[in-house]
C-alpha cells in the first residue's frame, strides 16, 4: 500500500511538470501510516526519479506548546522522516507553528499561504480511529478552516505511545487544517492501514456524511482516493470489498506506467492526463500477493468505484 501511494504521488508530481514558478503543492500527514510512503518517496528521490525542488508542502497539523525541536513535534517528525533526505527547499515547507504568540493569527496566515501558493494540488492524509482527518475531532464542522482544536481523549490515548505512555506529557491542543481546507484541495488521498482503523473506514465510506466521523466529508469531494490494506477493510461489507477487488486492473493504470523525472523532457509537452472519472474512488490494496498485470488493459475508466490489488 505504501508503495502504491508513493507511486501515485510520484506520478502526479512528475506529470504536473513542476518548474521555476510552477510549484506542485502537496499536503502532508504525520503519524505511523505514511512512514512507509515517505521512505519510498525518499528512495525515488535517491534514484533520481523524483525531485522536490519545485514542490511546496503544507503539513496538516502541529501540537500546541511543544518545543519545535522536541523529538515528538511534527516538525521533528517531518524532518527526520522526510525533509532531511530530499532536496526540498526550506522556504517551500510550511508547517504550523504551535508556539506562535497568537495562534489564531498563525492559522489565518497559514490559510493565506495556501491561497498564495494557488491552492493544494494533492492533499495526502490519514484517518484517526475515531474517523478524524488531521485533528478535526468528532463534532468538528465540515466546513471548518485552519484553527486551534482541543484533542479528544481517543486521540490523546492513541498518541500516548509516543510520550512514553505518560498521558500527562501528551499535548492537549493542536493547530490543524480544517475539513473545509482539505476539501478545497483539488485532489485528496487518504491512507488507511490496520484493523484498528477498520471501523472508521466503514463509517467514512459506507455510512452517511456525518461530522462525528469527519473523514466522511470526502464522499462529497470530486476527486478523492482512499488507499487501504486488507486489514482496514475488515468492517466493510463483503459486497463492497469484492466489487472493488474486481476493478483492480483499472486502478493500476494510475501507477502503471510509472513516470520518472529523468524523462521529464518528453513529458512536459503532454497535458495532465485525467486518470479516472470524477466521482469518489475507493482503492483497496491486498497484502503481499503479486498478481500478473496485463500491460494492455482496455477496461473503461468511467466506473465510479475502482479497486486496486497486488503489487
Amino acid at each position, binding site marked *: 500500500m505504501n508503495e502504491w501511494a508513493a507511486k501515485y504521488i510520484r506520478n502526479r508530481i512528475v506529470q504536473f511538470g513542476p518548474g521555476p514558478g510552477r510549484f506542485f503543492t502537496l499536503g502532508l500527514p504525520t*503519524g*505511523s*501510516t505514511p*512512514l*512507509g510512503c515517505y*521512505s519510498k518517496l*525518499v*528512495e525515488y528521490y*535517491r*534514484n533520481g526519479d523524483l525531485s522536490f*525542488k519545485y514542490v511546496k508542502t503544507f503539513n496538516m497539523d502541529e501540537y500546541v506548546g511543544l518545543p*519545535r*525541536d522536541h523529538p515528538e513535534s511534527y*516538525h*521533528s517528525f517531518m*524532518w*527526520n*522522516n522526510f*525533509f*532531511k*533526505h530530499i*532536496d526540498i*527547499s*526550506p*522556504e517551500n*515547507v510550511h*508547517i504550523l507553528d504551535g508556539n506562535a504568540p497568537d495562534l489564531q493569527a498563525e492559522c489565518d496566515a497559514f490559510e493565506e499561504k495556501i491561497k498564495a501558493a494557488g491552492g493544494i494540488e494533492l492533499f495526502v492524509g490519514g484517518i484517526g480511529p475515531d474517523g478524524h482527518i488531521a485533528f478535526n475531532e468528532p463534532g468538528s464542522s465540515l466546513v471548518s478552516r485552519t484553527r486551534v482544536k482541543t484533542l479528544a481523549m481517543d486521540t490523546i490515548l492513541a498518541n500516548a*505511545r*509516543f510520550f512514553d505512555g505518560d498521558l500527562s506529557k501528551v499535548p492537549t491542543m493542536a493547530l490543524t487544517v480544517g475539513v473545509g481546507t482539505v476539501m478545497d484541495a483539488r485532489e485528496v488521498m487518504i491512507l488507511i492501514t490496520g484493523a484498528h482503523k477498520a471501523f472508521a473506514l466503514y463509517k467514512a465510506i459506507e455510512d452517511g456524511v456525518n461530522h462525528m466521523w469527519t473523514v466522511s466529508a470526502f464522499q462529497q469531494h470530486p476527486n478523492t482516493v482512499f488507499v487501504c490494506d486488507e486489514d482496514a477493510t475488515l468492517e466493510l461489507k463483503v459486497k463492497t470489498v469484492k466489487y472493488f477487488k474486481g476493478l483492480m486492473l483499472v486502478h493500476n493504470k494510475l501507477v502503471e506506467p510509472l513516470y520518472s523525472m529523468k524523462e521529464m523532457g518528453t513529458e512536459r509537452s503532454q497535458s495532465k492526463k485525467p486518470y479516472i472519472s470524477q466521482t469518489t474512488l475507493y482503492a483497496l490494496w491486498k497484502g*503481499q500477493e503479486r498478481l500478473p498485470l496485463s500491460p494492455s488493459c482496455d477496461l473503461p475508466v468511467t466506473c465510479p468505484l475502482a479497486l486496486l490489488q497486488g503489487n
Partner: protein
Amino acid sequence: MPSNKSVSDAPIVQFTNCRILRDHQLQRARARQRRLLAVSQLEEQLYSGRHRSARGRRCPWDPLCPGSMSLGQGRLLLVLQMIRELGVCNCPPREDLWVREGKILNPEKLFFDEKGSADVQLDCKDSIIAPGFIDVQINGGFGVDFSLATDDFKSGIDLVGQKILSHGVTSFCPTLVTSPSSVYHQISVRNGGAHGAGILGAHLEGPFISKEKKGAHPEHCLRTFEAGAFQDLLATYGCLDCVQIVTLAPEMRRSSEVIRELTKRGICVSLGHSVANLSQAEEAVQHGATFITHLFNAMLPFHHRDPGIVGLLTSDRIPAGRRVFYGMISDGIHTNPAALRIAHRAHPKGLVLVTDAMAGMGLAPGRHTLGQQVVEIDGLNTYIAGTKTLSGSVATMDTCVRHFQEATGCSVETALEAASLHPAQLLGIEHKKGTLNYDSDADFLMLNDSLYVQATYIAGEEVWRQDVSGM
C-alpha cells in the same frame, strides 16, 4: 537553491553518503537497491510474522526497535543486510554530517529556523566518520623528544603535531617524562588546523613517582613533595597554566594534599609509576585522581588479595558520579592481548587508548633519545639501550585502535570511542571534543571499514588525506 541563513553567512558543508558515529552507534550502510530473487521469498516469510514496534515501524529486524524478534545471530544479520539492500525495511536512511564555522551544525535548526541549506555537498563514498582521536600520552616522535631541552622546542612540537594528523590524532597532550626542572618549559595550548593537531595542554609524567617503578625515567631526577607538598610541585614545574594531566605516585607522603590542590585547579591527576596498594589508590581517587597511566605497566601486578592500582577498575569505593579512566597502550607489546581483554571487560567505559609514543615513532630502527636516556628500537619494540626494560612505544594511534578492536573483538564503535570519546570525558571536554554532537568542534576522521584513516578534518577543514596511490 537560494539560502537566506540568518545566523551566519559562513559556508555550510554537508558530508553525504557516510556512516556517522553518534550516540555510540555507527549508522548502518544502506546499499543501493538490488532485486534478489531469493529475497522476495524471504520477504514473504518475514512479513507474514509482521510485528509493529512501539513507533509503528514495520521492521521486525531493526535492532533499535524494542519489540524486535530475535533469531540466531548469523541469520539475523544476514536477513537484516538483505532487507537493507532491498530497501524494504522502514529503518530510516543515514544522516549526513553538517559543518559550519568549524562546528558540527544541527541541520534541523538550519532548515526550520534559518531556512538555510548546504553550500557544498561532499560525497564521502560510504566512509565511516568518527570523532578525531585524542592522544593524552605522547612523548614525541619523528626524532623529536618533548622532554629534551632544546631551543628548537616549538618547531619540534609543530613537526609532531603535523605528522600525527595522518594517524587520525586531532588533539594531543605532549608528555614530559621525569626531567630536571629546566625542561619544564611552557607548552602552550593551541587549536589544531592545517599546521597540526591541537595541543590541549601538557601531560607531566613524573618526577613525583616511585623509585621502584621508574621504568625508563632517570633516577637522579626523581623527587618527592614530603617537605612542601604542593609548593614543591609548583617549584619543580614552574607554571601550571598549560598543564592538563599530572602523573604521580599516590603512596608518597602528602600526595593527598597535592592531588586535592591539582584537582581544584582543573588538572587531571593520574596514578602511575607507583607501588601503591589498592587502599592508597582508592584514597587518591577519593581526593580527586581520575586516571591511571598505562595500566599494568610501572605498577604492582594484580594480586588477588591486593589488586593494587589495577583494582580501581572494579573498586566499589569510587565516589558516586565519578569514573576512573585508565590508559592502555594497545600495541600488542606493552600489554598482552589477554590482559587487554581482562581490563576491557572489567571496565569498558574507562578505557582510554594512548600511544605513549616516543621520539622513535615514525623513524627507522636504531638508537634514539628519550628524556635523559638512550633507547633502542627494533620493529615495534623499544628498550632502554643495553637492557630489556620497555621504554615507550612506537605504535601510532590508528594502529592501537585497530589492534584493540582485533584483540578484544569489540565493535568498531567501542574501538573508536576508546580513542576519542573517553579521552575527552577524562579531560572534561566532551562538550566540544570527542563526539560528533551538534555544536561540538568539527574535528573528525574518515575511515574505511578496516579502520584505516582516509582523511583528517580539523574545524571542518581537511588537514590530511590519504594518497590514492598509497591505498
